[in-house]
């Protein structure tokens, strides 16, 4: 039983007719080709599939596709604008805050969500927000530094 799901995806209004119970993560990957969103655990504990849903960082493997009806979804592909990387993406590059890169999109989306909710997080708040995002290569300390740097950069940008 298919259902027409209307939502905003990476800034564009879109609609898709699918089984509404399908997992959001797979729909993003398979139906929209947005493969930056990664599968890691399937139960919402690793964070590799993190996206922004109405500006909140959420685990797309724990959402059904009809949960996003009339809502706003941003994936890693939609974070940059006009080819310009988001400050969090830039900071991850500058701090070399990745190795294999597989957890990286989820880390970046979670960090982007944090900085929307709290533009000036302390180190402790960053750790708290990132706690459930897993990285096996061990880039943690650089990821924390990258988020601190991105926060400062975004503050500068928002000032007139």
């Amino acid at each position: 039983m298919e259902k027409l799901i209307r939502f905003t995806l990476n800034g564009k209004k879109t609609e898709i007719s699918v089984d509404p119970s399908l997992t959001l993560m797979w729909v993003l990957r398979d139906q929209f080709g947005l493969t930056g969103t990664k599968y890691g655990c399937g139960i919402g504990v690793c964070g590799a599939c993190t996206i922004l849903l109405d500006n909140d960082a959420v685990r797309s493997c724990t959402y059904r596709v009809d949960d996003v009806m009339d809502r706003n979804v941003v994936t890693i592909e939609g974070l940059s604008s006009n080819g310009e990387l988001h400050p969090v993406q830039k900071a991850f590059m500058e701090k070399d805050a990745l190795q294999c890169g597989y957890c990286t999109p989820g880390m970046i989306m979670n960090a982007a969500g944090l900085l929307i909710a709290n533009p000036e997080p302390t180190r402790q708040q960053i750790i708290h927000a990132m706690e459930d995002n897993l990285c096996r290569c061990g880039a943690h300390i650089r990821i924390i530094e990258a988020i601190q740097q991105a926060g400062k950069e975004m503050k500068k940008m928002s000032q007139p």
Partner: protein
Amino acid sequence: MKTQRSRFDLKRRDFFTLLGGGIVVYLSSGNPSELLALPLIQERDIPKDYNAFLTIYEDGTVICHVGKIEMGQGPITSLPQQVADELDVSIESIKMVMGDTETCSYDPGTWGSMTTRSYSNFLRAACAEARAVLIQLAGEHLKISPENLKVKNGMVFDASNPEKKVDYGWLTKGQRIERSMDEKPEVKDHTQFKYVGQSRLHADARIKVSGEAQYTADIPMPGRVYAKILRPPSHQVELLSVDYSETEKMEGVEVVRDGDLIAVLHELPDVAERALSTIKAEYTSDEKEVDDKTIFDYLLNAPAETEEREKAGDLGEGEEQADFIIESEFYDGYKAHAPIEPHTAMAKWEGEKVTIWASVQSPFLMAQDALARELGLELENVRVIAPFLGGGFGGKIYNPQVPEVAKIARLAKKPVLLAYTREEEFFMDYFRTAAVIQIRSGITKKGMITMWDYQHYFVESRGSDTIYNVPNKLTTGYSEKRGSPIHPFSTGAWRAPGNNTNTFARESHIDMMAAKVGVDPVEFRLRNLTDEKMIAVIEALKEKFGYSYMKGPSGRGIGIACGTDAGTWVAVMIEVKVDTETGEVQPIRAVVSQDMGMCVNPQGATLQVEGCVTMGMGYALSEDVEFKGGDVLTSNFDTYQLPLFSQVPEVIDTVILDRQDQPPQGGGEPAIICMGGAIANAIYDACGARVYQMPMTPERVLAGIKKASG
């Protein structure tokens, strides 16, 4: 088990057809067994011809084709540094093609910290030869003797008249050049490098932060379906009966079967997963009565092959010379590799030929060769391409997903993607082995080691040698007897195989001796070491950390461990806080010092060190596989606890000793070997509790505290 070797005759691949024009330089792979840290499941003949690895195009672009893969450890950044220096081209002109069996030079696998210390030597030599050939060609064109020519950024010019010049791209224009030098040119001296030794950020970072980087499951493929495989509940059971009649009635669902391999196919993974759950299967029961609690007694009583090594002096004499005898027994549980990207493969058949995209550390040996052998295919009919890997750590050397997906796709007659779920990944992983280590040693009141009797059960021998100067010693290894498997599931290489467990035991025991004679543990080590490299590494560590001598337990919570791995000498010092109420251990600061010979990319090496420290905290403090017989109870990250942001030390400092004039050694593994020992010793130094078992969970730390105070 068959031990017959398969012998493949490789047809000479026509690289010019595959790659277009340009110069092709051949790289001798040598005998792959020399590069292997693992027993060969099969062996290719040494190629009678050579494999191409380098093409230079008219616009000056240099394409470097290497059989190595990129799983996060940085060859995509460090190999071009070396190519650019040996060829005298700009690093920006180099593009890497990696892990494709059809277009890259043969390589057995990316493992054992071999890329820099072994493979780079071939690569640099070949580049030096390519440069010499190009200069020779330029000399012929310019009518100038090669010794009067110089090269800069791919431009060959007359040293006395720089206006007389020709670039590499022009020289290779439309030509098929196959020439080798009779006299092999030498590679450059470290003083001549422009890129090697300079820090560079990840070359692949831009596409990894944007989400564009493609891992196996991300490769687009029209008409592709997902496969979900029926797995048994345990490794110790056999399939008795199966009924998938209801499954086949589901709309759009297809079931394929090849013996016990039963897979459900659908274009949507959700539907394939649901369909899989409708299969009814019965199995024999699991008779193996061993679990994660009883495993250590089980291992100590298991039949084993015995091997004696490192025999020197006489243990009896060493015992007589000793004032104290110290005995200990250490335990380490099974550990999962747990890369965030599970094992994945996609297969597409075209007639007799199959192309496989797969997250494998060994596209040639353990994927292409292994598959050709298993399915009886000609090698040229199997192409394996390893895109970016989402971590490996030794866990993607064996690739069960490759033959599985090839068989399923052949039956299905369409492209198939097999992406393991996390539950499958834990079930199908070959774990780092559980092990027991017994040590008996003698020391004098002055703190000199007189005797060392080291026995390791079911852990690899890597790292089991005594690094200290001991006159009377013996190392005895007990390992699985051929044909009688001990473990209830597969075990295998896990980042620095064997060395993590061995270094944990040795370095814990060294601290126990230091404590017995009331000597600071760092001073005790220096007193018993004669290895100058180790001494220099520890001195540098002390200095960076700002360490002062105090006998343990000092209450400071500082621990040290040192060792050697992959040709590198390494020492780690870590400071921890121990909550004596809960047993929780919080690392505060870590310093790592290493002598890795020539360092190609200090930034990349530093990242590997930081990764080793962070990943190593997991096996030391929290990672443990729970099981009952062949039933792996640990199935996801909710119970298998990787290091979390809150657990990582705020500072990890890395000291890389300046050894640019020495041959390069390994960097991907060494620092991780010290993490168990350094943390165990830091816990002891903090609160006097000696923990003998990894992971050092809060319960085990509390038990140690109780024992120390009672």
